[in-house]
């Protein structure tokens, strides 16, 4: 062994950082050397230096403590401000939403009045009502069912907390498609109306419907005739969710609703029609 042949100096002596640290000589080697050189007590730096250094150390500690304490309220304040701003903006959005609904109702009335004058207008109004209904542009009430799904318990800590019991966007897609298939005429997720082009997607941990994040539990309300519950019970979607419930403890409840109300879809955009710029 080379170490035994030359025990004085190992080749990695300058790099044995951790070995030095764990050995007993964590003390600055300078002290030992100063003690062994045994020079006459030269008071070059002396007690004054030690005093100054320790005063400096105390100052540092005190300043750091004060710094932390001073910053804490600032962080809290910042957080409060952000929360207040969130509430503020949400209230603003709600207000705008209400105004939009009011304006939309006004437009609706004006249009109805305008179209009621002629026979062609009457026909157009009926067409419009039918199309608007299909496009989820109008509020809708009626009988239906509400399906509530929620994440299951994380599957045990011994498994490393797998996410198998979570509701994914695909699950909601299967559920919604199953409800359409079962004959639903209008569907809303957590009070948000679905149109034929509404996307149900995932972004990170959240499920987005029409690019708005949902918070669990997910309540899917579907309006339809009396047969809706039975038709859904026989569908593949219900089978899918029964399996999920039994295997992963996911929540899955179906309730009949006697008078459910679904709002009009919020973001209706015109895809093909264009505004007439000149007559």
């Amino acid at each position, binding site marked *: 062994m080379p170490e035994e042949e030359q025990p004085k100096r190992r080749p990695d002596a300058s790099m044995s*950082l951790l070995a030095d*640290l*764990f050995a*007993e000589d*964590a*003390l*600055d080697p*300078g*002290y*030992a050397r*100063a*003690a062994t050189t045994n020079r006459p007590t*030269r*008071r*070059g*730096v*002396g*007690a004054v*230096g*030690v*005093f*100054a*250094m*320790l*005063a*400096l*150390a*105390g*100052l*540092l*500690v*005190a*300043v*750091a*403590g*004060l*710094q932390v304490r001073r910053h804490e309220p600032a962080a809290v304040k910042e957080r409060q401000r952000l929360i207040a701003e969130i509430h503020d903006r949400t209230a603003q959005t709600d207000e705008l939403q209400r105004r939009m609904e009011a304006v939309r109702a006004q437009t609706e009335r004006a249009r109805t009045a305008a179209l009621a004058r002629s026979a062609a207008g009457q026909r157009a109004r009926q067409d419009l009502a039918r199309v608007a209904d299909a496009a989820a542009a109008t509020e809708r009430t009626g009988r239906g069912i509400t399906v509530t799904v929620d994440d299951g318990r994380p599957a045990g800590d011994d498994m490393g907390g797998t996410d198998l019991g979570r509701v994914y966007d695909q699950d909601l897609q299967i559920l919604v498609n199953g409800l359409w298939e079962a004959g639903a005429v209008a569907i809303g997720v957590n009070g948000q109306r679905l149109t034929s082009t509404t996307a149900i997607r995932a972004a990170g941990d959240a499920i987005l419907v029409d690019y708005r994040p949902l918070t669990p539990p997910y309540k899917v309300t579907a309006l339809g005739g009396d047969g809706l519950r039975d038709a859904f019970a026989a569908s593949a979607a219900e089978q899918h969710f029964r399996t999920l419930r039994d295997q992963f403890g996911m929540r899955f409840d179906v309730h009949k609703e006697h008078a459910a109300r679904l709002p009009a879809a919020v973001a209706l955009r015109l895809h093909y029609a264009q505004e007439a710029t000149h007559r």
Partner: protein
Amino acid sequence: MIPLIGLVIGVGLGFVLHPTVPLWLQPYLPIAIVAALDAMFGGLRAKLEGIFDDRVFVVSFVSNTIVAALIVFLGDQLGVGSQLSTGVVVVLGIRIFSNVAAIRRRLFRA
């Protein structure tokens, strides 16, 4: 006794003067404190072992603090940010621990 008075006076000064730390200096403060603590415990241990030396203490205190600050600065410039400071804290922390353990052994013989 004198070093203890110095420490107390330093803390008192900090509380009385209430100095504001400039923003560019703030990242260096915690690491400088850890380095200072390391030098302090090293000095205390040397004192207990009877080999304390003023010059070694002052030089190790100053150089420890400066090197720690430099490492933080270097980490910032290299873009590894806090990782290098973590390294400094780990190394100095181990040293503080073993020095404190030596002090404890000397004081309590356990």
